């Protein structure tokens, strides 16, 4: 079945066109560079909202584009969006739009190159979410990972060479596992096609041995899981978050880590659902460590960004925890948590970036009472923190509630342990507020100024998104429900 180019292609092509325009734009027009990049992001934002509205909640791959690309290998240019990827497309475009707004003043040198790399990265991310062909999926996956290296070592801070190298090597290492897994499936299915849907059909027609499933699934899971910071392969992530510049941190924690979880669902679970059933207990155990251990480590950090970095480790644990529960609540919660955490952590990094740009430090104990000078930044950070500790009203609450509910259905005792993470999160988040924002104002920071109107716009968009989805969660769940149920039914078959 052939479908021509459509709106999905525009999702990843728009940032590429932005990149092309930027390449030919003289770098002294800094505002022009920013505007072009913002415009590209705005177009993808509008498109993703359009996709979200147009998506038929009955599920299945929609807006398909399917053309033969390389006949010999059976590579197809096959794009499609389902209930899992449509919200993530929306998430990505929200985060990149807000990311560009947040770094409007923060990035002062090599503005053009910065925006080129950002757009390149985001183009790769969009590509991953819409690709239904293993080759394209993998290419986009690499495009999404690599620019981060340059973004960190050029515009970063705090051990940036080490962290950039660590992150890149780690993720490439992970993608090797993914590649091996994909090649194994390709060989098993007779090397006729690389299309994921056809993979699926061929695997159904010619079921692989148990041994195949049990070895290939964990390879893919770990490969993607590294990107989602599964314990003990998580240490690249806090280091990377800390070293990256604001907008890159936002994209990185907000979107890139979701690529991992998305890859698990889209590729590993989709192709080898029995593998998830076999390894589910292991996944639950690892992610439980993520949740509790991540929170404890976050508690001990003194750098604001490290706190958030480890909180991401803890929160991404909730995503995997939900996947490991093998029930609809767990799956829905995991999918929702990807979205909710993405928005939340983008907000976190936007706020910390604003503080760092002005104070040039992120050490919690160096602050004190900066609420007086920066009420809006601190207020926005407060919203992020409250969302992080699972306050109702924000999207994260519904997501965590669903995950824990699913967990309770599957493993009541383990769920009761994991819930302790909620108190730990409250403890370390409120500690940050108490130490850094409240208390006796430190006269050293009297010169700080509050965020600009541009940054406030970013905060408003991010907070608004969290509230809208938190108050009316069906906005998300109605979209994702059908496809998650389909995926789940295959796992449980």
């Amino acid at each position, binding site marked *: 079945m052939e479908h021509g180019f459509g709106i999905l292609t525009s999702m990843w092509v728009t940032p590429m066109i932005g990149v092309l325009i930027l390449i030919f734009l003289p770098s002294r027009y800094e505002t022009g560079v920013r505007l072009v990049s913002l415009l590209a992001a705005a177009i993808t934002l509008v498109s993703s909202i359009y996709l979200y509205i147009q998506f038929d909640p009955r599920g299945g791959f929609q807006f398909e584009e399917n053309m033969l690309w390389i006949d010999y290998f059976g590579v197809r240019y096959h794009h499609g969006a389902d209930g899992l990827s449509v919200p993530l497309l929306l998430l990505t475009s929200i985060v990149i739009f807000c990311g560009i707004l947040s770094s409007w003043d923060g990035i002062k040198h090599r503005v053009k190159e910065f925006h080129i790399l950002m757009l390149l990265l985001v183009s790769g991310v969009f590509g991953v979410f819409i690709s239904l062909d293993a080759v394209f999926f993998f290419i986009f996956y690499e495009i999404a990972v690599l620019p981060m290296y340059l973004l960190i070592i050029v515009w970063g801070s705090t051990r940036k060479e080490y962290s950039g190298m660590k992150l890149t090597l780690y993720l490439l290492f992970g993608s090797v596992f993914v590649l091996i897994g994909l090649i194994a499936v390709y060989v098993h299915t007779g090397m006729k096609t690389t299309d994921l849907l056809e993979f699926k059909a061929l695997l159904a027609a010619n079921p692989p041995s148990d041994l195949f499933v049990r070895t290939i699934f964990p390879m893919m899971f770990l490969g993607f899981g590294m990107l989602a910071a599964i314990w*003990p392969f*998580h240490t690249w992530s806090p280091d990377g978050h800390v070293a990256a510049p604001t907008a890159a941190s936002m994209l990185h924690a907000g979107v890139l880590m979701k690529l991992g979880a998305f890859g698990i669902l889209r590729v590993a679970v989709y192709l080898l659902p029995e593998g998830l059933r076999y390894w589910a207990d292991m996944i639950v155990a690892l992610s439980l460590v993520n949740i509790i251990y991540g929170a404890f480590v976050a508690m*001990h950090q003194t750098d604001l960004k490290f706190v958030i970095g480890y909180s991401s480790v803890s929160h991404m644990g909730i995503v995997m925890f939900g996947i490991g529960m093998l029930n609809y609540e767990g799956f829905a919660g995991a999918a929702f948590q990807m979205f909710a955490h993405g928005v939340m952590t983008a907000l976190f990094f936007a706020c910390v970036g604003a503080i760092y740009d002005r104070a040039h430090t992120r050490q919690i104990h160096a602050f004190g009472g900066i609420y007086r000078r920066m009420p809006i930044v601190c207020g926005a950070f407060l919203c992020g923190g409250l969302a992080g500790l699972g306050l109702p009203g924000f999207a994260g609450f519904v997501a965590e509630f669903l995950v824990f509910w699913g967990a309770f259905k599957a493993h009541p005792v383990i769920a009761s342990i994991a819930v302790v993470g*909620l108190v730990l999160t409250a403890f370390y988040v409120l500690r940050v507020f108490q130490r850094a924002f*409240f208390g006796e104002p430190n006269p050293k920071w009297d010169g700080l100024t509050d965020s600009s109107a541009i940054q406030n716009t970013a905060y408003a968009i991010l907070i608004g998104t969290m509230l809208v989805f938190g108050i009316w969660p069906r906005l998300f769940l109605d979209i994702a429900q059908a496809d998650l149920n389909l995926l789940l039914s295959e796992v449980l078959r």
Partner: protein
Amino acid sequence: MAELYGPLGLSCLLHGIFFPYFIAFGVIILFLRRWEKAAMAVSILASSTVLASTLMLFARHQGLAAGHEGVLPAATYTLSWLSTDSAAFQFGYILDPLSVLMLIVVEVVSFLVQVYSIGYMHGDPGRARFYAYLSLFSGSMTGLVVSPNLLQTYIFWELVGLCSYLLIGFWWHKPEAAAAAKKAFVMTRFGDLGLFIGLLMLLHAKGNAAFTDFGTLGLPAGLATCISLLIFCGVIGKSSQFPLHVWLPDAMEGPTPVSALIHAATMVVAGVYLLSRSAPLFLASETAMLVVLSFGVVTAFVAATMACVQRDIKKVWAYSTVSQLGYMVLAFGAGSSQASMFHLFTHAFYKALLFLGAGSFIHHAGSNDLFEIARKGGRGMRITFWTTVIGALALAGLPPFSGFFSKDAILVAVKENCHPLWYISVMFVGFLTAYYSFRVVFILFRKQEAGPGVAHGHGGHDSPLVMTGPLMVLALATICVGAWEGGFGHYLSGAPHGALHWDVAIPATFLALLGIVLAGASFGSGGREEGVLDRLPVMEIPRRKYYLDDFYYWVTQKIVLGFSFLCAYVDRHFVDGAVNGVADTVRWMGSQWSKMQTGQVQQYLNVLILIFSILGFGVYLTVKF
């Protein structure tokens, strides 16, 4: 039940109660942060709308109830909020006598506190923010009250916790306030874990958490006990029962109107309200009821002893609140949810009165210290002083003030349903209550000291009318509400309430008078700062807060943070160490291998020949075998 309430239903009124506060919050936080007067106006407008709607709702609902045989059944107005294959959640309103009565408490006190704050917060630069938080709180509290299921309750339960956090830490620049706010949130969150797990357990068992179905759940006894106790964990946190009560006294760092609204009249009683809401669940389990009873009695006693030794007027009332919450909880545990709710109702008014009175004193004297307030002429503030006396009389449980009636109902329930030991303990707490409340009154009644310490020197002046007005309204309520006991009982449970039990009322009143006499003897005359009780060596324990704060401090500092340190250490040195170790190994191997690149052709040839020989040998072996 919609037809019972007429074609229009009462849902319009419920919208009028639920939404205005949230609208006010949104408007203030988005647009009016710099226009304080406008923010106040918006908030008070919302508050009056809600109050008017509540009173109308009450009038209509009670009219219906009067014409109805027995208790009026609950009506719910909901829409589907979240649904999965195994369960569905509704979001909306439940309308029954319980929610209406609770709404009256919440909205009346909210309104009065909002008016009072005009005076109290006068000149504070953060007034707009203050009113925004107050509105958010009242809206969330309303949402909690009208919630038809446990999930919605949990949602608003957390939101009122947030508002409590924000308002305790309202003067964020004070380190104590920032610490107290965090403590309050984390402590209550700890209890909320239980509630959350209980909610999940209930969902897992029944796929439903609607309160209207609680009577017909038919759970196995063990499970019912388990779920009840888990819900009770939430109550322990929120209604500050022993041993999680330590956050409430610290919460007094917030502005006094906040203490009156949140930490006396409304939020802290949410736990008691939840108990009444889930009564069928608890009644199914005797163990759960006994646990509730014992926690209530212990809390009532422990807090009352601590109230006896405080110098800070707000702390006295704070511990008193904890103690009175213990009364409500023990009443429920004794099997009388009606007595528990009635005490909640009367307590809300007289404790709000006492707190607002304390605020008025503090506003005038600039200090929280009882003796300092007395020195600066506390008794010269006539309206504040005499309304405080009325509140103290109600708190001590003397007739004909409201506290007398509600405590009588509780004592009757305890006497009839429980072991005599519980009854005696509660009686003794009544004595302590009278003592500490009149300790305050007698200290405040002392003559103003002339001298350089007196800053204002205008002892005859009272606070402005916006502050004394609410005091007088609350004092009136404190005097009158007790007489409504029969109507209250009939409305709430459909049963006519029995007359006073003189065999309980007389000894209780006698003990209360004894307490007052002891307080009078200790503090009535002379300038002593220590009474008879204070000189008892055993009072050192309540003075040190039963060592609970020290214990929690030790737990957080040593256990939690210690474990956190351990995890961080493991992460840095073992998990990350392994990663770096791999990287170092690779680098080392690379450097070793690179040594082979010597550039000497002879050596290359040697290696080549060696490798070919090995390969050749291998091929030979393969072919041969």
